[in-house]
């Protein structure tokens, strides 16, 4: 169990601002945030690599804020594929075990088993520079896991890999870390899909703060704030401004009355958030097609309204001409509403949508 209280740092670029959280052992936490949100800084602060100006780190109730890095019982995998260039793959993984005082033979045996788990059993005596990027990252992962430390941290470990390698490692990830099931696993990423796929709990960071946390599916369905909604939506969520007056929601030429799928807040300005699935073809609204892109079995259409821009997805593959007009409808039950201060003020009657 890892507890952090009021972590604050003063780095030149991105600093943590009063971050508190309780991490339970045996869980995988994915930390989602854009570049510069403070994800890396959080991991580095936990590791003791970045100095704290305030706050405490407690591991199993013991305050480790001042403990030297080598005694923290944590491991970290970097975004860049960093291994010891002068050591063989086997010695790379045996390195931390040797530092723990294990005998050479024992360390190498454990290292070799771990390398087998990550699928590098045939590469024990190569140098890291002779491996591909994906394999190098597997070495780094093996070295981090072999220690069986209480905290395993991975800082955007797949960001520098080719698309398909990324997909493959993501797929294998649960199996790869199964050896460390007693540990707290922290995994940072900028990709919402990766965060949702890999984490039991998802933590959203923005501007050096944790702005939301919870089960990935819940967070996605009910993001507590506008910033959260924007960070966890891929393809991007579209925001348009509107206002509620006399039990009707007005935006541009459109208006929506309350329904089962969407209750309306009191009168005043609101921000309407539209995910691609909130827009469907055919209906009352006229939109101009900005651009259409093909993505897997879907077509992504960038729409220009009189009152803003939005993105919709159409199943199947269809050619749309830029500049054409398209009739669309907006699904109230998929719409989300945010108050001017960014709070989610969406209320639905049937809470499963």
């Amino acid at each position, binding site marked *: 169990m890892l507890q952090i209280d009021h972590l604050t740092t003063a780095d030149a670029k991105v600093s943590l601002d009063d971050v508190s959280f309780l991490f339970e052992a045996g869980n995988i936490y994915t930390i989602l945030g854009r570049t510069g949100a403070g994800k890396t800084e959080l991991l580095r602060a936990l*590791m003791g*690599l970045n100095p704290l100006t305030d706050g405490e780190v407690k591991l199993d109730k013991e305050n480790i804020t001042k403990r*030297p*890095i*080598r005694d*923290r019982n*944590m*491991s*970290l995998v*970097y975004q*860049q594929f*960093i291994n*010891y*260039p*002068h050591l063989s793959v086997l010695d790379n993984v045996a*390195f*931390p075990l040797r*530092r*723990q005082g294990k005998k050479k033979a024992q360390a190498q045996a454990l290292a070799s088993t771990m390398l087998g788990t990550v699928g590098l059993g045939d590469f024990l005596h190569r140098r890291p520079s002779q491996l591909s990027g994906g394999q190098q990252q597997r070495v780094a992962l093996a*070295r981090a896991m072999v*220690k069986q430390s209480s905290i395993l941290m991975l800082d955007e470990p797949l960001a520098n890999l080719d698309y398909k390698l990324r997909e493959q490692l993501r797929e294998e990830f649960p199996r790869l870390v199964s050896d460390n099931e007693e540990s707290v696993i922290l995994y940072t990423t900028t990709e919402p899909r990766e965060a949702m796929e890999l984490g039991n709990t998802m933590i959203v960071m923005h501007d050096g703060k944790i702005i939301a946390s919870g089960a990935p599916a819940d967070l996605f369905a009910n993001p507590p704030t506008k910033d959260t909604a924007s960070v966890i939506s891929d393809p991007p969520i579209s925001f348009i401004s509107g206002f509620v007056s006399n039990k009707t929601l007005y935006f541009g030429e459109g208006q929506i009355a309350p329904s089962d799928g969407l209750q309306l807040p009191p009168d005043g300005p609101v921000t309407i958030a539209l995910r691609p699935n909130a827009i469907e073809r055919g209906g009352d609204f006229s939109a101009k097609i900005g651009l259409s892109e093909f993505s897997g079995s879907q077509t992504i259409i960038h729409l220009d309204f009189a009152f803003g821009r939005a993105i919709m997805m159409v199943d199947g593959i269809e050619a749309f001409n830029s500049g054409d007009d398209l009739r669309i409808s907006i699904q109230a039950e998929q719409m989300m509403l945010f108050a001017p201060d960014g709070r989610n003020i969406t209320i639905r009657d049937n809470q499963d949508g």
Partner: protein
Amino acid sequence: MNKFYHTLKTIFLLGWSIFVVFPFLWALSTSFKDANAITSGATYIPWVDFEPSTQGWTSLFTTGSRGINIIGPFIDSAAVTLIASLVSLILGTLAAYGLSRFEYRLGFVKNADITFFFISQRIMPPIVLAIPFFLMLKELGALDTIFGLVLVYVALLLPIAVWVMTDFFAGIPKELDEMAMTDGCTPIGAFFRVILPNSVPGLVVAGMFCLIFGWNDFFFAFTLTFTETQLLPVSIVSLNSSVTPWWSLSAFALISVAPLALVAVVVERYMSRGTMSGAIR
């Protein structure tokens, strides 16, 4: 590239090569001359222009009044240069690593200022230090000894080692040290176990520079040694001021510059591989 540029380039390279080689060839030719060949004006090719003689070379290894002993100065020079380079390299590497990885603060003095302090020693003209060094070594009883010169040369070479190694370490990702520490190393352990084994190119380049500047120094050797310890540059200059014939002088010069010419081969290898890019900026 068009033909004009190409021709221009070839002429330039050829011209410069001749300029570079010329003094060596001249010295080589002169070293085989005798008094006759010298005084009859400039001549170049043995057997054609003049009758070669080996007295220039033999005189270097002859002891006694007719000879010049080159072996003693050669050993002294080698000893001083190697010891001073090694000490500077060790101290300089440690300091450079510290400066590239930790934050030091002494009042308003920070890392950049300390680095500047090291490197700025090169600005100091030798003459500023010569007299005090003289008096200091005299107090220590180290005047005219190898130890005394090593002491002075360390001050001379340390800035070079710090300069090259600071830039080299700046090119090694910090994450490597951090990783070593998360893997259970102390900061000192991380340096010796992880950073040092990966620093060979930087160490070679820094070492080469130390050797070059150490071997080639004249002024301190000139002012701080007399008879007991004598380095090559000083001996040749003292030959120069006496009435030593050109043939001995030339042979002597060629022998004393030969060892470092080999260094050029090593330096070229590192330069071409691009491993020096981090080491020099």
